[in-house]
């Protein structure tokens, strides 16, 4: 594998897709508004919850805001890198244009996962960091090198779990042809990632930590920030993310054996 070639190709991907996106400048402005309103809506919802109680599942409003910030950052990353590409996979397979990807002298998973980039998520990432810094202030948190390292490590793991989830679901298109809505199911389930896991009843908590590992995505990084995360949880998150990444790769290679093109 030639790393230099991949970096060069990736730069070209970014250049072409950004120039496509910048064609529609009004859209970018509207997406900015959408991101701001979306975040204020979520905080509004949180404030409704907390107007009736002091804590949800043991989390105070100031602490729950950290989860919200992490969620916003991760959602921005999803909107920038994952969802524009992985919803395209559905199109490649339906229209048979995956043929042209497969015959290129480049890794097909790399191509389908990184072809597009959408600048709309940048705003969310930025807003998420602003909220996060605000949270550091109101919770009186000072990060040292160790916890900063753990934070980046766990967020890195969260990103790889997120990517794998999106990629695994999009890959099933090879069998089911039109699974655009399957990504919608994932999106709606990920929605609960913005609330503390402890606020759900026990059966749902089990569901969100095993069937769909939402708990690993936002809960553990937030716990790391608050300094209440335990060592085994972090180890577990690393293991889970590794399993997800490896199985997404395996699954893609396996699924390609069943790809039978369309019309061409």
């Amino acid at each position, binding site marked *: 594998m030639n790393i230099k070639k991949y970096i060069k190709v990736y730069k070209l991907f970014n250049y072409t897709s950004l120039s496509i996106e910048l064609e529609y400048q009004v859209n970018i402005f509207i997406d900015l508004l959408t991101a701001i309103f979306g975040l204020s809506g979520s905080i509004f919802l949180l404030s409704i919850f907390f107007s009736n109680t002091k804590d949800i599942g043991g989390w105070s409003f100031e602490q729950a805001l950290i989860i919200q910030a992490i969620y916003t950052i991760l959602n921005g990353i999803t909107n920038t890198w994952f969802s524009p590409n992985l919803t395209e996979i559905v199109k490649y397979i339906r229209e048979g244009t995956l043929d042209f990807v497969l015959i290129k002298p480049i890794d097909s998973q790399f191509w389908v996962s990184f072809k597009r980039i959408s600048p709309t998520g940048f705003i969310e990432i930025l807003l998420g960091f602003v909220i996060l810094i605000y949270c550091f202030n109101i919770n009186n948190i000072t990060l040292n090198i160790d916890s900063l390292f753990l934070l980046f490590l766990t967020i890195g793991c969260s990103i790889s779990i997120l990517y794998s989830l999106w990629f695994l679901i999009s890959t099933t298109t090879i069998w089911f042809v039109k699974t655009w809505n399957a990504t919608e199911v994932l999106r709606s389930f990920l929605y*609960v990632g913005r609330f503390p896991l402890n606020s759900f009843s026990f059966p749902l908590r089990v569901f969100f930590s095993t069937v769909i590992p939402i708990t690993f995505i936002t809960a553990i990084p937030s716990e790391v920030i608050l300094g209440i995360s335990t060592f085994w949880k972090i180890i577990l998150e690393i293991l889970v993310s590794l399993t997800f990444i490896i199985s997404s790769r395996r699954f893609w290679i396996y699924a390609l054996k069943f790809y039978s093109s369309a019309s061409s």
Partner: protein
Amino acid sequence: MFNLTPYKIGTLLKTQYSNMMEYRVEIALWAISGVIPFFMLNIWTNNGLNDSLGISNIMLSRYFLSAFFVRQFSVVWVVFTFEEDALLGRISPYLIQPIHPFFRYFAQHIAEQITRFPFALIIALFFFIFNPESLWFPSIGIFILSLISTFFSFLIQFLIQSIIACFCFWTEKASSFEKLIFIPTLFLSGLLAPVESFPTFVKSWVYFTPFPYLIDFPARILSENNVNIFSGLCVQIIWIILFFIIFLKVWSQGSKKFTAMGL
């Protein structure tokens, strides 16, 4: 006014229904993606958030189940289909047909709702298996009234999205407008929290917007929470008339702008 005959309506519905049946798995998945109200219900009851509001757990669970149903049968996506059709130039043949193009989309939505109905029922069945104490059967009158208000809610959203879809004539890409409108729809309609739980400074103006009438109002009728049915229906009708007039204006302006693409 629109050249509609019963024969045309029947044909449109039949073709769209068979089209939707082809993709029934997709519609089933879509139905599943609407389960967010149940997660919200879980947060509400599990933390006792409803105690200070004076809503019992059973009434709240009925409310959220009704909200799920109302949402299932008022989902609108016309702007996405229209945007694709406009970008690919498929609108051109539709425009010369002796029927308004939006009736095609309207029939699509109705057919989709019919296909979706059994899946929504199955999800509700699971809900009652887990929450048997919240089972209730609304009277026929209540059922019909909630059906009407759900249909009105669907009409309001369909008209709003159709107006946005017409923006395609000017900007080519209108779906980002839709994403913007979806945010208040999500947070102010009562899908995630009943409108009566909102703080007073929001409640004071939110009833002047169409949003609470999209989910909260029909869901309250169906779940038999107390609500002024007559005035609610009147407000829904006013919004429908208003958006219909705007739609006709925007359409007549926009379709003149249309320059055939593709073909």
